[in-house]
């Protein structure tokens, strides 16, 4: 496979699958639809690992694709560097397991082809946002993913789900609106939309009075997509309302791609990060991580509890990135990877319980360990991971974030991270206690374990949780380390793209 051709495939495959499934889905059997949706996901995962391999030999460690052969800044380009490929691997791998899970879980829903259509549109948006090198393109893909997710939240079409989707759509649109405004201001100032070219112009121009204003717009816009406090209010309604596999997708990868990736990419590689920006990130991260977990503690709806934890965990990621040292960013990105694995797993578990027992209320389930051993076991692993208990993956990323805080001298933030970790543990002890331990309820006597495909996905994700810590081994470390370097050496991004495309 030629290195040039891999990049657009990340957009083409899901975009094609989305419409192909919606057209064909009405005429073929359910199993055929399942096959049609799992195959593209396998291909995408394969290509993302392939991109990882190709990247090592690529010039400047950057895979470039010029759409229509037009060189930037005039044409649109797609650029995948180490940070991009890191995100691609995370997104597509998690999407693969969620897709496999959905083939079992969606049995209950009637209009299944539409579900997969929206699923792939969302994936198109996320992959496109990661690979694109053009700011306006980024906005378009952001909107594709967002609109697909609004529809997916409302997929059950119950009153509660529609209300959540409505809130999500309004707040999401406000965010998109402000992001668009920011892009417009930047375009007006730099006369270019290519991110690399824009970074060059901003770096060379003398007065950049526009930066604070645009930064505030972007922090609010992408912060809302990432569900940082105080922009988080849509998430606790929206994430629980979606079907479980979509909740896993939303919490696991969507908020990270649309929020954290976009924020990091734009601030580190385009606008140029300043100490004030980092301070704002740290602060937002810290309050998100405390408020999220405190609110999670008093929830009895399992999925709502998990949704609040997403806010809290995103707080860790942003806090890590906001420290700004290589170690801090490493911790943040590592936690991003780990969180997407264990949070997806937790939502899949909640889906399995919902599928078998028919409830999301912790008070109505008890002693399920006996009847659903796989769900209980994988949930145990995921809970311990998110609570940062050794030897699971979440422990190592929290450890690095805390070490980075101390290294940089932010003892207060470090203390907040510790408190957040203890409260997270407390909250997941509650989940374990009420969902899986204790005596089996009379009403749950006939509960059966989830079907094979669902078990398969849960076990696969649990294995990643257990083995995640090995990514710290020196031979595997470059996977994250190279992504960290992209952010640390933010200015090189534009130089490489402009240099490579000029050839």
């Amino acid at each position, binding site marked *: 496979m030629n290195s040039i051709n891999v990049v657009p495939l990340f957009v083409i495959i899901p975009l094609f699958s989305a419409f192909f499934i919606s057209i064909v889905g009405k005429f073929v059997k359910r199993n055929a639809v399942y096959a049609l949706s799992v195959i593209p996901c396998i291909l995408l995962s394969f290509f993302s690992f392939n991109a990882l391999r190709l990247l090592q030999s690529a010039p400047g460690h950057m895979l470039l694709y010029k759409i229509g052969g037009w060189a930037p800044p005039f044409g649109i380009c797609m650029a995948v560097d180490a940070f991009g490929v890191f995100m691609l691997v995370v997104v597509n791998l998690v999407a693969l397991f969620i897709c496999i899970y959905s083939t079992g879980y969606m049995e209950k829903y009637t209009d299944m082809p539409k579900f997969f259509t929206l699923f792939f549109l969302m994936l198109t948006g996320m992959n496109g946002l990661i690979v694109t090198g053009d700011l306006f393109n980024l906005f378009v893909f952001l909107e594709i993913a967002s609109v697909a997710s609004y529809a997916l939240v409302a997929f059950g079409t119950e009153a509660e789900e529609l209300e959540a989707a409505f809130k999500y759509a309004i707040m999401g649109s406000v965010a998109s609106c402000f992001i668009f405004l920011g892009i417009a201001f930047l375009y007006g100032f730099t006369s270019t939309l290519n991110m690399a070219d824009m970074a060059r112009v901003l770096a060379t121009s003398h007065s950049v009075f526009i930066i604070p204003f645009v930064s505030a717009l972007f*922090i609010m816009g992408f912060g809302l997509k990432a569900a940082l406090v105080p922009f988080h209010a849509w998430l*606790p309604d929206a994430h629980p309302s979606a079907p479980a596999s979509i909740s896993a997708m939303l919490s696991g990868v969507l908020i990270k791609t649309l929020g954290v990736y976009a924020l990091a990419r734009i601030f580190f590689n385009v606008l140029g990060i300043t100490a004030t920006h980092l301070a704002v990130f740290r602060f937002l991260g810290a309050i998100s991580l405390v408020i999220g977990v*405190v609110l999670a*503690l008093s929830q009895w709806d399992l999925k709502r509890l998990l949704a609040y934890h997403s806010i809290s965990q995103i707080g860790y990621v942003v806090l890590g990135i906001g420290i700004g040292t290589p170690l801090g960013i490493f911790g943040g990105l590592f936690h991003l990877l780990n969180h997407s694995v264990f949070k997806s797993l937790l939502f899949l578990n909640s889906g399995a319980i919902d599928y078998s027992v028919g409830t999301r209320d912790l008070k109505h389930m008890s002693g399920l360990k006996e009847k659903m051993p796989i769900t209980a076991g994988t949930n145990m692993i995921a809970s311990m991971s998110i609570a940062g208990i050794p030897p699971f993956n979440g*422990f190592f990323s929290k450890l690095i974030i805390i070490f980075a805080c101390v290294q940089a001298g932010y003892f207060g933030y470090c203390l907040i991270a510790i408190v957040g970790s203890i409260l997270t543990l407390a909250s997941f002890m509650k989940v374990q206690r009420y969902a899986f*331990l204790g005596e089996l309820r009379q009403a749950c006597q006939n509960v059966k374990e989830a079907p094979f495909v669902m078990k398969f996905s849960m076990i696969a994700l649990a294995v990643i949780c257990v083995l995640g810590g090995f990514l710290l081994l020196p031979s595997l470390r470059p996977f994250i380390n190279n992504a960290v370097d992209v952010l640390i050496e933010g200015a090189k991004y534009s130089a490489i793209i402009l240099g490579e495309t000029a050839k």
Partner: protein
Amino acid sequence: MEALSLFKSLFKIDALNIFLVPFICLFGIVVIIYSLGGGAKDIKAKGAYYTYLLLTVATSCAAVLANNMILFLVMWGAGGLLLYLLIGIQDAAASADAGKKTFILVGGSDAVMLFGIAILWRLSGSFNMDSMHVAVAGKAGVVAFLCLMIAAFTKAGAMPFHTWIPSSAKVAPIPVMAILPASLDKLLGIYLLARCALNIFIIPASSFVSIFLMLLGAGTIVCAVMMALIQHDFRKLLAYHAVSQVGYMVLGIATATPIGIAGGLFHMLNHAIYKSCLFLTGGNVQYRTKESDLDKMGGLAVLMPISFICFLIASLSISGVPPFNGFFSKWMIYQGLIQGLSAGGSRFTIFTCLIAAMFGSALTLASFMKMLHAIFLGQPSPDIARTTKEAPFLMWLPVVFLSLLCILFGVFAVALPLKYFIIPAIGSTSLSLSGYAPVMSAILIAIGIIAGLAYYLLFGAKKSARADSAFVGGEIIPCDNRVSGVEFYNAIKELPVLRNLYAKAEKGLFDIYDQGKTIVFGIGKFFQYLHNGVLPTYLIWTLLGMIVIFFVLQR
């Protein structure tokens, strides 16, 4: 070769940790034999149970041998996770609750330790225990020390982080209580404390930290033993003693004198032996009688003689009666305290601690007399069949072994454990252990007992004993009326000042877990109030947030 050098940098074997390994394995073997013999009869998930037990032994060994702090933390934390899994191994709501509380405290303290390790790393630039020599001075040093202390105290169960032990005592399986809170967790917690005092930190003698730890140790001794006195369930009673005894170990190590530290380590070892013996003997009784309430037992000494003798020996050990091992280590701790005085320690603190320790020892004896009487002596309870037999062979064998160890470590204290384990561990050869000759006094005590027995057998003390009905308040109570002996101790509960304190303690006012819960839920309520579900409110936060960020960035 590379793997070997990595291994060498991660682990380090020295005299302080190597002697713990055989004991960790020993307790593992004892508890596994006991479980095989029938101690694990009620546990359904047998495969998981033995897996967790073996993993516990493995992680404990790895934790004590680790030199790298991260490896230590991973193993230590995994031990906490296994404790949680073991407590909740029976599917019951009560044990699940206890497990939850335990792991929130234990796992939470691991997170605190992580903070401490991070600060240590910043101060010393290393993760290796042997290359850290951080002075407990300045803000960072003190915070790091306190963080590690919190972890050690929670694991070992010293106040105020002890509340998980009494909560889980009644609901966790007995072998689990015997191996984790009673022995391995103590070994690990006190090992960390000793490691901190000897290697990781430099604690100036008679400093603020030392005084603070001593007072905490003394407070733990007295408060926990006061709680133990009023318990009616033997498992809870033993659990409070497991807390109280930690106080002695902390006190010993906090004196920062060689003999005090040696005494603390020796007491840790002794405690693990007699406390696991007590829990397992109690388990034997419960195995046969299905009862753990002291009010409902009695007169079992005749029916279960082996258990009775073992329980008696272990009780005397824990109460610090010579010639058993508990006495010797307590005596060393007292010596350490007195030496601290000559080293220039605060006179007031040391005398307070000394009095508290001795007072605690007396109360320990009192509460064990209550327990011995209620379980084994006195009139038999109608709730227990007179056909109750001794526990199966594999269940009493470990107990006999442990009680023999109590005698051995008491009588030959200087010749065996001190010489081979404790003194090399602290690396000090100049311990003055004069003033008490354990072998000699053991012989004298034995002679005394033999003389008494001889008198009893020869002159038939039975003849002079007389049973008669009592006359109380105009009512004649028949002589076979049962007195369990537990009621006598209720008087303590009614003492004017203590009455209030006990009532509050039972409501959980002194429980860090309950208090923390109240605070967190209070804050949570406030935030929940803010999340009113009205879209315009949310939009207003969003816009306000953006405006604030804009002003911050503009500055």
